[in-house]
């Protein structure tokens, strides 16, 4: 225990002199939280819209007004021909075009289908599907109003009154969804690399071998190397949780203690991965490159940004091998839904299992790396 403390003390002495790394450990979580929290937004508002109104009537203007009132569409220009519509979209000056038929107004009064056309730039599928669903909603609303008047419907609610309640993220903010998961990504991003590089550095410089001829046991060497990073992990976790709570105002619905408990298990898994990498990499450069190898699947196949349900079966199967998947499920459960670890026992069991497996493998491999 005394020796373990001595090794830990040594790591912090070294860290104190490595001011760049210390700054990175603080700045990387802050920067990433800012970037992901502010920049990523699935809820695209003010889509640039060009209008070709062939009708030029009260009714056609009503449609345009309804669209812009939704905040999702912003009219950036009026054109007078389909060719101009095409040109505006081609040039990228607008991503949505609303074309209103010449007979639109007359049809409304006649009580026959009034036609309008919404063209969206579907190369960005997220934006396109959002524009489509909002426009569809507006069209339905107008249709229902028209039909209700015609049928003499006197109720305030429509014939079928299906109410939608967005629980757990009532304002539907992307940041609320993104930031809890970010905890997993930042811990992965920083800790795998730090651990792998720190161990490889000691091996490269021969100091690891020097430690092995002292009375220090292998286990103490491993723990001494890993313990400081556990503390760094907890520090980073705290940093992100504070930013999440007080800068992005994401309320933590569940238990903070349980959040940290799951966090510790995930930190152990990530440190194990770092250690595993250190037994493969010969140089610090290789350690860094190898850690990027892990990063990509952790970001994209963990359900952090892209929903797992939307992936092809093959990739869905791969996600089961990614510990971040389970951790993200747990944090979202705790932070957003106020779930307890008991309720989240499935991802918790999977995460714990993976952690034990990774750490055992890393320790075994680490023990026979001299020859």
């Amino acid at each position, binding site marked *: 225990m005394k020796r373990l403390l001595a*090794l830990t003390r040594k790591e912090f002495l070294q860290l104190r002199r490595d001011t760049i790394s210390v700054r990175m450990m603080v700045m990387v979580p802050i920067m990433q939280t800012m970037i992901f929290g502010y920049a990523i937004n699935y809820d695209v508002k003010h889509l640039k819209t060009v209008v070709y109104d062939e009708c030029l009537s009260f009714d056609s203007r009503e449609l345009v007004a309804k669209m812009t009132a939704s905040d999702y569409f912003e009219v950036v220009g009026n054109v007078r021909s389909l060719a101009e519509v095409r040109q505006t979209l081609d040039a990228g000056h607008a991503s949505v075009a609303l074309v209103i038929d010449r007979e639109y107004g007359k049809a409304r009064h006649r009580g026959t289908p009034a036609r309008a056309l919404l063209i969206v730039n579907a190369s960005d599928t997220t934006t396109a599907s959002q524009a489509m669903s909002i426009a569809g909603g507006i069209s339905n609303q107008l249709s229902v109003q028209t039909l209700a008047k015609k049928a003499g419907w006197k109720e305030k609610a429509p014939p079928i009154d299906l109410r939608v309640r967005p629980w757990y993220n009532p304002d539907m903010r992307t940041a609320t969804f993104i930031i809890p998961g970010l905890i997993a990504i930042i811990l992965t991003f920083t800790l795998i690399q730090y651990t792998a590089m720190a161990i490889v550095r000691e091996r490269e410089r021969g100091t690891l071998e020097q430690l092995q001829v002292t009375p220090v046991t292998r286990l103490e060497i491993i723990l001494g190397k890993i313990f400081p990073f556990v503390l760094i992990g907890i520090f980073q976790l705290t940093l992100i949780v504070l930013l999440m709570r007080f800068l992005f105002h994401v309320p933590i619905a569940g238990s903070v203690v349980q959040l940290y408990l799951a966090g510790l298990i995930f930190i152990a898994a990530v440190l194990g991965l770092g250690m595993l990498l250190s037994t493969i990499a010969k140089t610090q450069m290789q350690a860094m490159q190898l850690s990027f190898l892990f990063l990509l699947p952790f970001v994209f196949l963990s359900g952090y940004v892209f929903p797992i349900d939307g992936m092809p079966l093959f990739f869905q199967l791969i996600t089961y091998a990614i510990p971040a998947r389970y951790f993200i499920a747990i944090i979202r459960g705790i932070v957003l839904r106020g779930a307890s670890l008991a309720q989240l026992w499935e991802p918790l069991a999977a995460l714990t299992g993976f952690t034990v497996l990774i750490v055992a493998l890393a320790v075994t491999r680490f023990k026979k790396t001299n020859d």
Partner: protein
Amino acid sequence: MIEARGLVKSFGTHPALRGIDLDVARGELFALIGPDGAGKTTLFRLVAGLITPTKGTVRRDPSATFGLVPQRFALYEDLTVDENLDLRARLYSVPAPEARLRSAELLDRVGMGPYGRRLAGALSGGMKQKLALVAALLTRPDLLLLDEPTTGVDPVSRREFWQVLNELHHGGLTILVSTPYMDEAEYATRLAFLDQGRLLAPGTRDEILAGYPRPLLEILSSDRVAVRACLSTVAAVDDISLFGTRLHVRGAEGTGPEVIDAVRAALAGLVPPDGVRPVDPTLEDAFVLAAEGDGLVA
């Protein structure tokens, strides 16, 4: 203190050590002399228990503690001299007051007293090696293993370093040291050559030199190319090597002191008779012969 029997170590298909028998007794200063790639570092790592033998055994006296100074500086360059020593003391559970006293005393002894607060990475090559020695001695080991401690160190520091080793040896410490420099073997109580994974001719310096089985002549001449040419046809001579400004000429197997006459005759007109004289072998001569596989009676 150290006992190796039939020690073999291979890395993949490459044999680094091919069957070594080595005994180092308590209180000895044993020098292993050998060129780069001879297997010296592998032998040290085996003795230190960092790697396991492919075949054979290596034993350290189980009651003896040891310190290892590896060939490459292996202390933390981003810690100061004091911090490195403090860490070492803590890892060996040396009480702090004792560790401080001893560090100061050892640093003074190697002339590094004023450098306690300097970063280890900012020390010169010679000082780094001294620091490594101090770190190894801090825990009062019974056995000191030094793998090429003076390679790449300037001559003055080398001399100082060996003076310290000599003092330690006289203080009763058992030392196993490797070096590529023949002249450093002067200090050793016993020595052995290590060449291509084999240990040749272990013994004291005098034993090794007395056991040199060949006649050896020294030739003083400014025209060494011509001398070589003349002697290449003399059957009684089987090796000519350059020693500083002189040539050492070795008699072939089975020849005796009479070789000198054949050499003088062959060089008649080129070198005067008194330019050819018998000379005592040096360790380098002994090593060259041993390395050729003639085998030596130690």
